[in-house]
């Protein structure tokens, strides 16, 4: 590949100065116009029929401009399975579900008015454990599942709480188990967690007098929000405009359409006002997507030489009260269910199950952290049984060039073994350091989970002076989209990054972008930008050819000048061509230069409904984590001494930002391993703020060494692949494996709180080991 000038360089973030000066505008920092403040009335039962809602007192409260309930807005909304309404209609399905909302002239007035809304419920039997929800006699969370519209790759079972049953059958598991010398069967569990982005969810809506809707949202995906809202409200897309400003962290929690729907009905009642809602931290934790809990059962067959012959994987996911998005996590985990390993015979059943718990949804990793937890733990358990080095066992079974995933897709450009070995070396794998110290390793793989036709597009405008504007629909939530895309545009055009401008998206001006999720945007938007740049260059070279009288195919743009490849002295300034190029005689030749790029993956396909076989992955990104820990066996406290993370980025667009992302993902993984868990009491979150929902501080952060491998992805722009979610995936199992190594317990759930670890050590001493679920 030719040397790169702008890709692979650590230029400063495009948003850096704004972000360190307090100048970066997040949604709540905008003064958009005459404003009304919205507050929601939330259900106080987890499952109940709404017998009565009386809003009359609230309506009369001073300052109140509008009150709405679900009765007035029964329209459904959803990404994959359309099962959700803005406000509860008829019944509530989870604690904290919005049942009504108020818009008032001040936050205070809105908050007071909400208290005046009276709601009476008839409590219904509720279900909080997805395993119970699968039982015949379990209460139904959704009685009319068969009537829900859905994307046809999801398979709900009407009359049950199953909103999606994903099936995968590869090879012959019976034969595989027959070949095995050892069969291990275990259950694993992953609890609910929250993204707890430091910026909570926020939205604002303006219904103009001419019937246009503008929505400002902390959404990761303005195009999807626009599409889902327009459909739900039965509006033409052109009348809906969605703007995402800087976003204070996403991690999947702000994907899809989340809470925008709450302010729209209010805005419709108050034309001309901007109606804004800002979730409190407590509302955010209770009322926005959580990571779905997982109850997993893995049965693995392995030969004495370490080769895994068969895997049977059953996953029961706690989808919560609505699974419009969750059904796809269950699917993605299903079709990836061998993790980073090449297993010939696989049988997987992955169930998305409704319960009366908070709504499940996407979280960094999109099911991979949860699904690979069981895989990576079980490999260590097998290694111990076989008296084999867990690293060795991983190397034997790890995917290699040409290996096939669970869904039968061949993987290419794979350096998984190198990912594993790098981190192992970094922590001096194999050297025992002390009595209560231990080392652990885990691998990871992830592909973006997206529809096979999830598209990206880009427009490049060459300004009259030769500087550049890139228009994109991707969002900036910290991942560095603005910077990475600018670098790709700079590379594609051969114009310095400083001359490239790009803004956060506004669907009225930015071209379509499916979603900024799944570690896909740098790849897919990068493709679109490359295409747009090619389009621009063609136009520029055509004009240069007219100007210089040489063939267009022999032109080259370098920053502000186009020159003839054969004689550099024959050149023309870009700005001459870009400023509505005219002949010397004054006759106009060409208007402004605008390039377009429009990308859709062409090699992905739907999966066979019975076997789950097919090509669901745009690319597969591999990596690994190794951890060294020290356990205080008396208190159960786990201290992380060091962490090493590797990721095969294909090509790091900006090595510095890539590293920050790897560190950030590793810390989030550490956080889930040790601290994070939503504690629920009959569907109610008991720890809705940082007082008891703990995430690490800087003082909890051990030294992390990171290794960025660059095994180029042939189809990726400049060989890159996405790495946003990946660094988190293998952290919890690596830490748990290290804890297992240190004190001989077998964590089957996390977080590994001091109390949990202590109890497991006790149980092990008493002969009943393993961390209970």
């Amino acid at each position, binding site marked *: 590949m030719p040397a790169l000038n702008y890709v692979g360089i650590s230029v400063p973030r495009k948003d850096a100065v704004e972000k360190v000066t307090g100048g970066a505008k997040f949604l709540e920092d905008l003064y958009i116009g005459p404003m009304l403040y919205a507050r929601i009335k939330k259900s106080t039962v987890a499952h109940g029929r709404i017998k009565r809602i009386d809003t009359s007192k609230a309506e009369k409260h001073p300052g109140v401009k509008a009150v709405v309930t679900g009765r007035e807005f029964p329209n459904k909304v959803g990404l994959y399975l359309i099962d959700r309404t803005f406000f509860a209609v008829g019944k509530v399905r989870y604690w904290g579900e919005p049942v009504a909302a108020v818009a008032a002239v001040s936050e205070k007035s809105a908050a007071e008015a909400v208290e005046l809304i009276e709601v009476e419920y008839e409590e219904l039997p509720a279900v909080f454990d997805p395993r119970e929800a699968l039982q015949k006699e379990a209460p139904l969370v959704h009685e009319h599942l068969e009537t829900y519209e859905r994307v046809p790759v999801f398979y709900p079972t009407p009359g049950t709480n199953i909103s999606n049953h994903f099936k995968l059958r590869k090879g012959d598991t019976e034969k595989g188990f027959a070949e095995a010398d050892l069969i291990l069967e275990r259950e694993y569990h992953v609890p609910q967690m929250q993204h707890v982005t430091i910026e909570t969810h926020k939205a604002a809506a303006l219904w103009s007098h001419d019937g246009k809707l503008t929505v400002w949202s902390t959404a990761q995906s303005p195009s999807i929000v626009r599409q889902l809202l327009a459909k739900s409200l039965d509006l033409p897309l052109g009348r809906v405009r969605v703007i995402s400003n800087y976003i204070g962290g996403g991690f999947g929690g702000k994907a899809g359409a989340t809470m925008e729907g709450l302010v729209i009905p209010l805005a419709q009642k108050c034309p001309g006002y901007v109606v804004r809602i800002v979730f409190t931290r407590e509302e955010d934790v209770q009322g926005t997507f959580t990571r779905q809990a997982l109850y997993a059962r893995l049965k693995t067959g392995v030969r004495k030489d370490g080769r895994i012959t068969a895997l049977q994987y059953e996953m029961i996911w706690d989808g919560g009260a609505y699974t419009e998005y969750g059904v796809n996590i269950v699917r993605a985990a299903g079709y990836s269910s061998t993790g980073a390993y090449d297993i010939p015979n696989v049988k997987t059943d992955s169930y998305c199950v409704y319960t009366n718990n908070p709504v499940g949804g996407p979280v960094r990793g999109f099911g991979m952290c949860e699904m690979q937890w069981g895989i990576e733990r079980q490999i260590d358990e097998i290694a111990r049984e076989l008296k084999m080095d867990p690293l060795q066992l991983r190397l034997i079974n790890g995917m290699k060039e040409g290996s096939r995933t669970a869904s039968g897709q061949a993987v290419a450009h794979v350096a998984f073994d190198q990912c594993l070995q790098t981190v192992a070396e970094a922590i001096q794998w194999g050297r025992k350091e002390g009595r209560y110290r231990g080392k652990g390793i885990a691998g990871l793989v992830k592909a973006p989970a997206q529809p096979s036709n999830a598209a990206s597009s880009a427009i490049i405008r060459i300004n009259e002076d030769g500087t550049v504007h890139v228009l994109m629909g991707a969002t900036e939530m910290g991942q560095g989209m603005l910077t990475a895309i600018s670098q790709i545009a700079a590379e594609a055009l051969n114009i310095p990054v400083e001359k490239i401008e790009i803004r956060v998206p506004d669907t009225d001006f930015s071209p379509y972008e499916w979603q900024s999720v799944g570690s896909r945007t740098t790849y897919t938007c990068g493709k679109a930008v490359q295409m747009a740049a090619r389009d621009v260059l063609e136009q520029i070279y055509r004009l240069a050819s007219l100007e210089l009288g040489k063939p267009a195919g022999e032109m080259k743009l370098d920053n502000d000048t186009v020159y003839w490849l054969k004689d550099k002295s024959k050149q023309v300034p870009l700005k001459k061509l870009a400023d509505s190029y005219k002949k010397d005689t004054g006759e106009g030749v060409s208007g402004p230069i605008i390039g377009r790029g429009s990308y859709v993956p062409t090699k992905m396909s739907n999966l066979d409904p019975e076997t789950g076989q097919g090509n669901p992955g745009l690319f597969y990104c591999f990596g690994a984590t190794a951890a060294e820990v020290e356990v205080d066996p*008396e*208190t159960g*406290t786990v201290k992380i001494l060091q962490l090493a993370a590797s990721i095969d980025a294909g090509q790091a667009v900006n090595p510095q930002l890539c590293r920050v992302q790897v560190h950030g993902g590793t810390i989030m993984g550490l956080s889930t391993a*040790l*601290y994070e868990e939503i*504690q629920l009491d009959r569907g109610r979150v*008991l*720890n809705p703020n940082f*007082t*008891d929902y*703990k995430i*690490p*501080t800087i*003082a*909890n952060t051990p030294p992390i060494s990171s290794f960025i491998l660059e095994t180029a992805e042939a189809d990726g722009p400049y060989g890159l692949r996405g790495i946003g979610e990946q660094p988190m995936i293998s952290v919890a199992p690596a830490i748990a494996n290290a804890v297992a190594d240190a004190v001989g317990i077998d964590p089957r759930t996390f977080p590994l*709180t*001091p*109390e949990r670890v*202590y*109890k497991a050590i006790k149980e092990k001493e008493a002969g009943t080991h393993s961390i209970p679920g």
Partner: protein
Amino acid sequence: MPSFAYRKCTNLAEAFKLLKEDDRAVPLAGGTDLTVGIRGGKFRVGALIDIKDIPELNILLADRDGITIGAAVSLNRIISFGPIRENVPILAEACHCIGTYSVRNRATLSGNICNASPAADAAPPLYCLEARVNIAGPRKKRTVSIEAFFTGPGQTVLQQGELVTSVLIPRPYPAGKGVYLKGSRTGSVDLATVGVAVQRRGNEVRIALGAVAPTPVRAGSVENAVNKNGETDWAAAARLVRDDISPITDLRGSREYRYHLAEVLVRRGLEQVMEG
């Protein structure tokens, strides 16, 4: 309409007058418990009487009687006060593990005890140091021992209209080492699952615990075993702490784990202060 009134006082008499005027008026020190409690609906107040600018309450001094810590003195000032670091480092250590640096910039010791959380980190060392709480009301002043001060979760001997003016760490200061051991979920900015203060005084030891009973408690049984019966098997002594505490299960830990952790931390505390 604001839900409460605010008044900054510059002398005690004014504060007493204002506290009397409205029976829903409460003193405001650092506000790190009060503002959180008001937001969460735990406190409903009519007025906040800001006592931080009252000169008497800003006293921090060491004299013949001991160390007087005025009610408006921030935890960070306490932590860096020489006489405290030299004579009663256990107090600095415990104050240091309260909240975050910025919280400690405003939070006060008096606020910590007046809020009377069973998990208040400053309380166990104050028990070990036999601190005295100086209280003043519109008419009279009184002094109570720190142990008499707490009456239940969120409850103290304070009457409406009374203020804590200062806390006294009396002389003689303990000759011997003291440690505050805090067990928590993250080990950084977290409330105590169990807090244990162990202070040696010559050949004797004083032990107090937080987060294991409705109020902070002295480990009388352990102290007895060590001080009276000459127990030097620290593990055996520590086991007795189970008789002194009555923990509950909550988000930060189960009752059983708290029993266990209390025992471990008491033993470690004994090892650290009684040996060497």
